[in-house]
C-alpha cells in the first residue's frame, strides 16, 4: 500500500509516495538520490547508515520512513556549510587522516555530530562510546577519535552548530 508523506530532510520538505514498509535508508538513497548515507549491513550492526532524526543518531536501515513524518532529518549532505566549506567535523576527519575507504565515514561523522550537538566537550571515553556502534575496518579508530576531539575544540571555539 502506497501513501503520500512529507519528510523534512536537511531543511527541505520532500513530498513522497512510499510504501509503509519502506526504510528510511532506501528512501534517502533510491528515491531522493541522497547516496551519502551508506548501507553496509541492513541489520543495524554497522551504523554506516547513521543519520540524525530530531537530533538523535538514528540507524536509517532500521527506521521506517513513514515514522519520520514531522521530524527533522539530517544526512551527511546536510552538513554542507555556506560556499561548500566543510563542517569542522568533516575538516578534522580529512586533516587527521581519519578516512581510508570512506564507506563508514558519513555514518561516523553523523554519530560524531549527534554527540557534539549535545555534549560540546566530550571526554575520550564519551567519544569512544558515541561511535562504538559504528564499525570501521580500515583505520583502527584512532584517527577518527582524534578527529572528533579536534572538531570538538574547533566547534567550541567557533560556536558552530
Amino acid at each position, binding site marked *: 500500500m502506497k501513501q503520500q508523506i512529507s519528510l523534512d530532510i536537511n531543511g527541505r520538505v520532500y513530498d513522497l509516495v512510499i510504501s509503509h514498509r519502506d526504510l528510511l535508508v532506501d528512501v534517502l*538513497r533510491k528515491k531522493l538520490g*541522497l*547516496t*551519502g*548515507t*551508506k*548501507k*553496509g*549491513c*541492513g*541489520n543495524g*550492526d*554497522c551504523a*554506516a547508515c547513521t543519520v540524525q532524526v530530531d537530533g538523535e543518531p538514528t540507524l536509517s536501515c532500521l527506521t521506517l520512513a513513514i515514522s519520520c513524518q514531522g521530524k527533522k532529518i539530517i*544526512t*551527511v*549532505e546536510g*552538513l*554542507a556549510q555556506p560556499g561548500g566549506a*566543510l563542517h569542522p567535523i*568533516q*575538516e578534522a*576527519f*580529512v*586533516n*587527521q*587522516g581519519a*578516512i*581510508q*575507504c*570512506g*564507506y*563508514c*565515514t*558519513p555514518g561516523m*561523522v553523523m554519530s560524531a555530530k549527534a554527540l557534539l550537538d549535545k555534549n560540546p566537550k566530550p571526554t575520550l571515553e564519551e*567519544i*569512544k*562510546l558515541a*561511535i*562504538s*556502534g*559504528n*564499525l*570501521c*575496518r*580500515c*583505520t*583502527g*579508530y*584512532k*584517527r*577518527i*577519535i582524534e578527529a572528533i576531539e579536534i572538531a570538538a575544540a574547533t566547534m567550541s571555539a567557533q560556536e558552530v552548530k
Partner: protein
Amino acid sequence: MQTWDKRETEVTEGKSSYVREGVPSYLDERRHSQVGRSVPKVDAAAKVRGEAVYADDMTLPNMLYGKIKRCKEYAHAKIKKIDCSKALALPGVFAVLTGDEAPNKWGIVPHSCNETVLAIDKVRFYGEGVAAVAAIDEETAEAALDLIEVEYEPLPALLDPFESMARANEVVIHETNPDNIAFHGNQIYGDVDKAFAECEYVLEREFKTGMPQHGFIEPQSALASFDPHNGRLHLWSSNQVPHYLHRQLSIVTEIPMSKIRVTIPTVGGGFGGKGEACPNEFAACILSRKTGRPVKITYERSEVFFTSKGRHPCHMKMKIGIDKDGYIQAVDFDNTMDKGAYASWGVVVMFYTGSMVHLPYKIPNVRSYLRNVYTNKPSSGALRGLGGVQPRLAMEVMLDEMAEMMGISPYELKMKNAVVSGYTAANNMYVPHTEYKRCLETAVEKSSYLEKHGKLPFGKGIGLAGGNYISGTAYTLYQNYKPHTTVVLRVDTEGGVTVQCACTDIGQGVDTVIAQFTAEALGVYFEDVHVVVRDTETATFDLGTFASRLTYATGTAVKAAAEPINQKLKEIAGQKLGCRADQLIIKDHKIYSMYETKKTMSWDEAVDIATSTVGTLVGVGHFSPPRRKGIDIVTGNRIQGGNIGHSPTFGFSCQIHEVEVDVETGRIRVKKVTEAGDMGTPVNPMAADGQVEGSIVYNMGAALYEDQVIGADGRHLNPNFHDYKMPTSMEMPDMFINTLKDSYDPTAPFGAKETGEGAVQPTFPAITNAVYDAIGIRFYQVPITPEMVLRALKEKKEKEAGCGA
C-alpha cells in the same frame, strides 16, 4: 583548509630536514619534497561529504535490479531440477539466469579455475548461487527468487580437511580431485634432519587458526551495461583487481577483452575479498546482455559472508631446531589448510605459507609439507597478509617458548637470528634491504619490554613478535612476463600534470601515493596532479591491488615515465639558461642549475614553451619485477611453488602488545601496542601510520573474536555483523606507532616499501605471547576466546592442585 609547508618533510623525528646533513643537495637522491609529505588523501573531502560514488550509489537509465537465488537447504547437494517458469511469468521480471547458460569456468589462478557463475549440477557450500533474476525493482526480484523451484538430492557435507581426506573414497567434492586435495606441495631446502640432529634445542608444536572474513563495510556491488548495437560491455564494480576481473569476464562471457571495459568506482574496503571476480559481476553482465538493459546486483551482508573468500584456516605442525649458540638451524613445517569449496587463490596462499617460513630470521634448512583440502565450507582465498600470518603465529610463539627454554629473552633470540640487508634465504628469496633489527630495538626500547616482560602481576602480560611481508610479487598468475604496471604521464599548459594508471585504491591510498610520486618525479606539487585510475579503458595496465605491490610498482613506473618529459623540459631550459641540460634539476616548479643557483627558470614557463613548440609532453613507464627463481641454492634443484614469495623487496615490523586477562570472564583486552616498522620511505607518513594502526586492530579481531562458525550440517551460523564480532572503538588499544622515518631502501623507488600487509603479521603471536606472560598459559590456536581462557585456567588450577596433593 590547513596548508602544508611544501618544504617541510619530516625525515628524522622532531627535526625538519629537507636537506640531509653532509650530503650535497644535488647528489642527494633522498632529497624529496613531495614524497614524505603528510597530505590528506586526494578523495578524502569527497568521501567525508558523502559525494564519493561507490558502485551501489550508481544508477543508469532503464536500469534493472538483479538478485541471486541461493541454496539455503544444504552445504553439499546435487541439483536435480531448477524450474524458473513461475518466476519468469511474474510481471516485472525481465530475465532469469541459471548456471548452464554460463558454463565457462572462472578463477583467479588459471590452472585451477573451477567455479561457474551459478552452480551447475551441484552445490558445494551453503549459500551458493543457483539462479539469478533481473527485474524492474528489488522487491519484484526478491519475489521472483521465491518462485524459483529447485530440487536437491543431499550429499554428505565434509566440514573438516582431515575428514575430507579420510572420506574421499565415499564423498568427492570436485570430480577433478578424487582425493579431495585441491593442491599439495613439498619444499625441501637443505638437510633438515641432519641439522636437527646437531641442534641443542628442538621444539615441536601444533597450531590451529580460525576462519575470519575481510569485513569490508561496503558489500560487493556491480552495475553492468551491455550495448547490443556494438557488442560492448561496460561494468562498474567494487573490485580491487580490474585486470583479472576483465580477463575472467572475457572468459565467461566470451566477449573479447577489447570490447569489455571495467571501471572501478570508489571502493569501500577490500582486504583481499574483492581480489578476484565475484558471481554478481558475471550475473549482472550476462543479465544485461540478455535484457539489453543495465543491471545492478548489490549483495546483502549475508551474501558477502557466503561468497567472499576469507583467510584459510590452517592446521600446522612446526618443529624448530636451535644450536647451542642460539642460532636457528632448521625448521620443519607441515600445513593442512581448509580450502572450502572452490580453488580461488588456494595454490598461491598454500605456497606462501611455505615461503613465509624463510624470513625474517636466517634459517639454513627449511622443509615444508603443504596441502590445501576441499571442504563444503565458504571458499578460502586472499585476506590481508595472505599466507603470512598463520606460519608467523607458529614461529613467533615457538621462538618465545624456546627463548624461555634457553633462559634468554625472546628479544635476544630474535635479534641474534634477524635477517640483515643483502640476505639470501635458503629458497633463494633475496632481501635487498631491511631494518628489522632496528624495528626490534625500537619497539623494545619504547615499550620498556625488557623491564616488564616476566615481571608484571598475574593477569597482565607483555608479548613481542616480529614479522615481514612481500612488497609486490615477481610473477603474474598466468604465464606471461609483461610489465605488471604501466604509467602514462601527460604534461601541457591546458591539463597541467595528469597521471594515468589502472591501479585501484581500496582505501589504502594509492591514488594519493601515485600523485605524490608523480609530483616528486616531475618536480611539481602534489596538489597539481590529476589522477586517472581504476579503469581498463581510460587508464593504463595494472595487475591489481594485492600482495602490497602498488607502492613499489607505481613508484618505479612513474619514475620511468617522468624521464622523457624531464629531459625535454631540461633541454628547453638549458637553451634558455645557457647551460647543459644534464646539469639541471627540476624541483618545486623550478628548473635550475645544480652548480649555479642563479641560473633558474620556472617550470611552468618551460612547459608553456614545450606545449607551444612540440605539443603535449607524454612519458610512458613500466614496472617489471625482477625474475628470481625459487631454487635450492646448494643443489640447484628447482622446487615446485618455489617462485612464490619472491618479491623485489620486503617490509618488516615489530609489535609489542600489553594485555589484561580477566580471569573471571576469560576476556582478553589488548591495552597498549608499541610498534616499530620498516616500510622504507613513508610516502605519506600520516596515511602510512593509519595503515599500521588499522592493521593492528584488524588482526586483533581475528586473534580474539572473529571466526565464521559453520554448523554441523554446513550451515553458516553467523553471516552478519551482529554475530560475527569485529573490534569497535571500545576495544581499540592505545597505539604507539614508531615507523622508522629515516629507513630508505636504495633499490626501491623513492626508497619506499610496503606497509599495508606487513603490519598485520606480528599481531597474532604478540597477543598470544602476551597472554602467556599474563597467565602462564600458552595458546596454540586463534582466536583465543574467553571460553578457551576459562577452560585453560581451570585445567591449570586442577593440575596445580593435583601436583600439590
